[in-house]
C-alpha cells in the first residue's frame, strides 16, 4: 500500500476515535443524575494510550477539564501501578490535584484490553451537585471541610464493585442516590467508549493504538508548532484585579512566545485566600491553555501533543497554584478569570484578536431549601439541593458585539427554569436580559441578566453565592467602557454578599443582577444604526443612547414610535 493511502486510512481512524469519545460523552449526558452534568454539560471524556497520553477528547464538555483530564490518567497509572491493571477494572478519584480541581468533580478511568492486551484507557469527569462537607460553596477553610475525599483507587476490581467504598460514599453525602447514579453513569460511558474502540480496532485490523496514536500526536504537534512559530517572538504582561472572598485578588501573567512553546508565568499573582476560591494548577493550566488555543489554534483537536507546547507555571501556594490542603471548591470563580488575564497580555502581542473582558465567572448559585423554621412547616415541605448555572455577558470582540447572557470561557449550558422548578421547591421569578449592562463601545459588550429566586410556600433556604465582579466589573478595551457590575440583595433591600452561604427567611426573595461584558473601541464610533437597533430592543435605555452614544432626541423619538407600532427594525 502506498504511503499516501495509509494516510487516508489513518485519517479515517482519527475521525472515528473523535466520534467514539463524543459518543462516550453523550452517553454520560443521557444517563447522569446531577443537573450539572445532564442539563449543563459540565463534564468531559477522552481516550488515552497505555502511557496515559490523551489521544482524543470529546467536543462536548467544558474547557475547565481540558488539561486536567490530559494529566489525570498519568496519576492513575502511577497510583494504581502498571502491574495492578486488569481487564474490567474501573478506577475513581475526586482528588482536586490529581483530578480536575475540586472534590465535586468525579473522575473515572477504565483500562481497555483487546485480545488480552492492555491497549489504553478511557476517562471521564463530571461535576456532581453534592459531595458532602459544607456543601458547594466558598466557606470552607481547608479541603477537609469541603466534602468526602476519594483518593485514586479501584471502584471495580476485575469487574467487582467495591461495596465498602459505595457505603462510605452513601454515608457521607446529601443526595446518595444521585451521586451513586452518577458514578455508575461515568463507568458506563467508559464502557460504551471501550466497546466502540474494540469495533474500530477489529475493523481496521489494528492490535493496539500505537500506530494511530503516533499519527495523531505527530500531526497535532506539527500543526500546533507551525502556529506558534508564525507568531511574533515577544513577551507581554497582563493583569486583572477581581473581588476575591474578603479582599481583592490580583491575577498577573507574563506571556513569553518562544519558537516552539508559549510560556504563561503567573508569578506576582496574589497568594492563597483563606476561603475556597483557590485554584489547583491543573485548572489554571486548563483555562490558560484554552484561552491561547482559541486565539491561536482553535481547530486543532485537544490531545497530549497539541496541548504540550502551552506551558503554565505559577509559584507554589499562589491563588492559581494552590497546594493541598487549601480549600478549592469554587476554583472556577478565579479560574474563569484566567482567560481574560491571559488576553490582557496577548492583546499586546496580537492586536485586534482577543475580546474585551467579559463576565468571566459563571453566575452560579446553589439553593439549599428546607421546611420553614420560623413557624410550623406544612407536612409536605421537603429538603432539597438545587444548583443552577447562569451567565453574564461576554466581552465585545474587535469586530462584533459581545454575546448576551452567554458563558465564556466556560462551556456549560443553563437549565430550563421549568426543569429547575421540578427538581426542588424553588421558584425562579425572573430570568431575563439586563438593559444597559453591556459596556458601551464601538462594539458593545454582551448584556448580563436579572434573576429573582424564592421558595415555594412553607420553605426557607440558604443561598450559596458564587459571584464575582461585584466590585471589579469587566474592563473595556481600546476605549470601550466597562460592563455593569454584579449586584445582589433581598427583595426587602437587605444587602447580601457576592460569595458565601447566606440565610433567606420564609417569604423573602433574592434579587440578582449579573454582570455585562465590556465594550471594545470608543462608544462615539458606534454605527448609529446599531445604536437605534439596541434602543428599539431595549438593550440600552434612551438615556444611554443619548448620553453615551450621542443619539439625537429626534432619532430617539423616531425609534420609540417605531417600537410602539410593533416595527421590528
Amino acid at each position, binding site marked *: 500500500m502506498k504511503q499516501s493511502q495509509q494516510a487516508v486510512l489513518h485519517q479515517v481512524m482519527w*475521525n472515528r476515535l473523535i466520534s467514539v469519545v463524543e459518543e462516550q460523552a453523550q452517553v454520560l449526558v443521557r444517563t447522569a443524575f446531577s443537573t450539572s452534568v445532564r442539563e449543563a454539560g459540565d463534564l468531559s471524556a477522552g481516550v488515552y494510550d497505555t502511557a496515559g497520553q490523551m489521544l482524543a477528547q470529546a467536543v462536548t464538555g467544558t474547557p475547565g477539564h481540558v488539561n486536567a483530564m490530559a494529566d489525570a490518567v498519568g496519576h492513575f497509572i502511577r497510583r494504581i501501578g502498571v502491574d495492578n491493571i486488569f481487564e474490567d477494572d474501573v478506577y475513581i478519584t475526586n482528588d482536586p490535584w490529581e483530578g480536575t480541581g475540586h472534590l465535586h468533580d468525579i473522575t473515572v478511568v477504565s483500562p481497555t484490553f483487546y485480545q488480552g492486551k492492555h491497549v489504553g484507557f478511557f476517562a471521564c469527569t463530571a461535576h456532581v451537585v453534592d459531595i458532602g462537607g459544607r456543601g458547594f460553596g466558598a466557606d470552607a477553610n481547608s479541603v477537609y471541610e469541603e466534602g468526602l475525599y476519594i483518593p485514586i483507587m479501584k471502584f471495580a476490581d476485575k469487574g467487582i464493585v467495591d461495596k465498602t467504598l459505595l457505603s462510605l460514599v452513601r454515608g457521607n453525602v446529601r443526595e446518595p442516590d444521585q451521586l451513586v447514579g452518577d458514578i455508575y453513569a461515568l463507568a458506563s460511558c467508559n464502557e460504551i467508549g471501550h466497546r466502540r474502540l474494540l469495533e474500530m480496532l477489529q475493523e481496521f485490523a489494528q492490535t493496539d493504538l500505537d500506530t494511530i496514536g503516533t499519527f495523531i500526536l505527530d500531526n497535532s504537534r506539527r500543526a500546533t508548532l507551525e502556529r506558534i512559530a508564525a507568531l511574533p517572538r515577544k513577551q507581554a504582561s497582563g493583569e486583572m484585579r477581581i473581588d476575591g472572598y474578603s479582599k481583592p485578588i490580583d491575577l498577573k501573567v507574563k506571556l513569553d512566545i518562544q519558537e516552539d512553546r508559549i510560556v504563561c508565568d503567573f508569578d506576582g499573582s496574589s497568594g492563597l485566600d483563606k476561603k475556597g476560591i483557590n485554584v489547583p494548577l491543573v485548572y489554571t493550566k486548563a483555562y490558560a491553555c484554552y484561552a491561547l488555543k482559541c486565539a491561536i489554534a482553535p481547530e486543532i483537536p485537544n490531545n497530549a501533543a497539541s496541548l504540550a507546547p502551552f506551558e503554565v507555571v505559577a509559584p507554589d501556594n499562589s491563588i492559581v497554584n494552590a497546594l493541598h490542603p487549601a480549600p478549592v471548591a469554587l476554583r472556577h470563580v478565579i479560574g474563569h478569570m484566567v482567560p481574560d488575564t491571559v488576553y490582557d497580555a496577548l492583546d499586546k502581542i496580537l492586536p485586534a484578536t482577543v475580546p474585551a473582558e467579559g463576565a468571566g465567572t459563571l453566575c452560579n448559585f446553589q439553593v439549599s431549601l428546607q421546611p420553614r423554621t420560623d413557624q410550623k412547616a406544612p407536612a409536605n415541605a421537603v429538603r432539597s439541593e438545587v444548583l443552577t448555572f447562569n451567565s453574564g455577558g461576554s466581552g465585545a470582540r474587535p*469586530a462584533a458585539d459581545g454575546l448576551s447572557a452567554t458563558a465564556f470561557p466556560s462551556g456549560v449550558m443553563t437549565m430550563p427554569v421549568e426543569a429547575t422548578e421540578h427538581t426542588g421547591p424553588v421558584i425562579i421569578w425572573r430570568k431575563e436580559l439586563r438593559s444597559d449592562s453591556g459596556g458601551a463601545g464601538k462594539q458593545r459588550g454582551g448584556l448580563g441578566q436579572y434573576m429573582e429566586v424564592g421558595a415555594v410556600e412553607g420553605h426557607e433556604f440558604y443561598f450559596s453565592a458564587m459571584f464575582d465582579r461585584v466590585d471589579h466589573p469587566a474592563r473595556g478595551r481600546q476605549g470601550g467602557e466597562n460592563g455593569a457590575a454584579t449586584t445582589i440583595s433581598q427583595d426587602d433591600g437587605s444587602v447580601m454578599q457576592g460569595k458565601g452561604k447566606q440565610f433567606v427567611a420564609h417569604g423573602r426573595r433574592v434579587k440578582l443582577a449579573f454582570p455585562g461584558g465590556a465594550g471594545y473601541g470608543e462608544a462615539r464610533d458606534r454605527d448609529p444604526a446599531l445604536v437605534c437597533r439596541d434602543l428599539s430592543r431595549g438593550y440600552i435605555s434612551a438615556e444611554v443612547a443619548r448620553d453615551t452614544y450621542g443619539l439625537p432626541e429626534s432619532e430617539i423619538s423616531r425609534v420609540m414610535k417605531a417600537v410602539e407600532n410593533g416595527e421590528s427594525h
Partner: protein
Amino acid sequence: MFNVGKAVNQDTSIRLGVDIGGTFTDVVLEVGEKQFSTKVLTTYAAPEDAIVDGMLQVCDRAGIVPANIDRIIHGTTLATNALIERRGAKTALITTQGFRDVIEMRTESRFEQYDLNLQLPEPLLPRQCRYTLEERIAASGEVLIELQRADVEVLVDRLKAAGYQSIAVGLLHSYINGNHEQLVREVLAERFPTAMVSLSSEVSPQMREYERFNTVVANAYIKPLMKSYLGRLAGRLAEEGVGCKIFLMHSGGGIISLEDAAEFPVRLVESGPAGGAVFAAHIAARYGLDKVLSFDMGGTTAKICLIKNQSPKTSRVFEVARSYRFKKGSGMPISIPVIDMVEIGAGGGSLAHVDAMRQIRVGPESAGSEPGPACYGRGGDRAAVTDADLVLGKLDPDNFAGGTIKLQADQSADVLASLGEPLEMDSLTAAYGLSEVVDENMANAARVHAVENGEDLSEYTMIAFGGAAPLHAARLCEKLGVDRLLVPSGAGVGSAIGFLRAPSSFEANRSVYMRLSAFDADHIRHLLGELETESTRFVLGCDATSDIEHEFKVYMRYTGQGWEIPVVLSAEQARNPDPQTYSDLFERDYTALFGRPVDGMDIEITVWSVNATTPAAQVSPLAPVIEGDSAPVAGHRPVFDAALGQQQNAAVVLRDNIEPGQTVIGPAVITEDETTIILPASRAAQLQSDGCIDITLQEQTATTDSAQLGAST
C-alpha cells in the same frame, strides 16, 4: 412500468402526490397500477403555479382530467424555508413577566467553544415584539399569581394598535395548566378577532420553556403565510376542476387535513424528508424488512433515518435552520412529533479543503448548482464530492443527468491535484481521500444515530435514494457492516411517492410527571383517554370512515435523570396500567441502550403520547423473481474500489436493459438517467420484480474491507 406495490384495495383510485422542494417541485400521479411523475422548477412567488403545471402534465400523460383525482397529498419546504429565510408575518409573543428573553437567551452557551468570533442566531422575534403579563403558574400546575383579565385587555389593545397579524402565547408551565393561555385567547378573540393566535399549550405542550416558546413562536410566525398559501392552493386547484380533498404531509410522517395544517403549520416543517422516510418504510414493508436504514443523499446534504418494523423512528424535538456548519445547537429547536433524522452537510456539491493537521475535510460548504463542482466547467475551482466521484470513475462524464450536463474530467483532476499537493497525493489518491472522508462522515453519523437508539447496524438493510446516494451507498454499507442494500426505482421523486403511502395520523402528547412509586392508574387512564380523543379528532378530520389504530408511548427515566427514553405500550398496557409492567418495560429498554439498569432507583414518567393512525396501506407481496442470467454488459471502465484501495475494471450495465431476476456481479456500475449505482467488488446485484436493485454481499469476498487495508499497514 413496474408494479408499484401499493395498497391492494386502492387499485382504482387516482392519487396525486406533490412535494415542493428548494429547487424542484416533484409531482407523482398514480392511476390504478400506473405511475406518472414529473419535476418542474419551484415557483417561489406563487408555489401553487408549479403544482398546477406539474399536475396538468401528469394528468395529460395519464389521459385523465384533474376532476378525476380522488385524493391529493402535499408536502412542502415552504414552512421550513419561511423560518430559515425569516419571511414570516408581523408577530408578537405574549409571555410571563420576567421571562421576556427566553427565546433569545437560548441555552446560554456557545455551540462552538473555540471560535472567539462566534455569532449566535437571532431569535425569530426581536425583543420589542415580546410582551409580558403578570401571572405565574407553578411546576405543580397550581396558580401562584392569577392572570387579570384587565391586564390582558390593555395589552391586547396595544397589540391591535401596533398592527400585529399573528400572536404567539407562551406562558411558564402552561403544558401542565393552560388556563391562563386560554384566557389570553378569549380576550384576543373578543377585542382583536383578526389576529391569528397560537397557544404553546396546544402547539407543543411539553416541558422546557425555550423549546416550547420557540415552537409556538415559529407556528405563529408562519401561520398567516401558510394559511394564505393553502387557501390559494385550494382555490387554484378548484379552478382546475379538482373536487377531491387535499391533505398535507406532516413532519411526523402522516397526513392531516388542510384545515388542521393551516392551524398548526409548524407541523409541516421537514415534511418533504419525512415523505422520503415513508417511501423507504413502504419498500421495507414490501420486502418484509424489520430493520432498515434509509439513506437520502442529494446535492448539499445527506439524511439518515432508522426504520424499525416498517415505521420510521420518531422524536419529540428537532432543530431547524442550523446556522453554523450543521452544528448541534446552532439552529432553533422545534418540539413537535417528528421523524427522527440525522442531517449532515454531505452531498454531491460538498467542497473539500486541507486543514492545519494536513487532513482532508469535506463540507458542509457546498458548491451549489452555480458554479457547481469543478467538472461542471462553470468556474468551480475547488474540489467537490462529484469531482472525486468523476476521477474515481464512478461517474461517466458523457452521461451525467441523462447527458444534459457534460462533465469535464480534466477540471476535476486539476482541482483534486491542488487539493492533494500539500499531502503529496496525486489527483486519484486525493479523490480517494476525499471520497473516504465524506463516506466516513456519513457512516459516523449513521453509527452515532444507531448507537443513540441502541441499535446494531449490522442487522440492518439500507435503502438508498436521492441523486447522489447510489454512488456512495455500497461503500457506506461496507463501512457499517450492512450486508444488503436496496436501490428502488423512482428514487428521484421518492418523497412525493412516500406521501401517497402515508397514513392519516396525528400524535398528541403532554408532559405530566408521575413516579412509579406514586402510580395513579385512574389518572393514567384519564390522561391517555384524553390524548386518544385529541389525536383521533385530527385523523377523523382526514378520514371519517377508516379504522383508527392507536399507538401508546410513554417517556421514562430514573427519577433524577434529565433524559427520557421512549417506552412503547400495548393498548392493553395503556388501558389497564400496572406499575410493575411499566417498570419492567423501562428497565428492559434502558438496559438495551446503556448496558445495565441502576439498582434501587425510583422511575418516573414524564411525557405521555398517543398516535392515532389509519392502518398502514396493505402491501401486495413481492412477486418472486426467477434467478436469471447475467445482465447484458454495455462495456467496461476503470473504477476505484475504496475497500481494495485500487482501481478495478468494472462492467458497465444500463439499468433499463436489466430484466427482473438478472444479476450483475461487482465490480460494476449500473447507470440510469438520474443516477449511477456503484457496485464494488464486494457486492452483487439482482433486479427485483418491482424494479428495485437488490445488492448483497458476495460470499467469496466476505472479508471486511478495511481489514485488508489495515493488514498491510
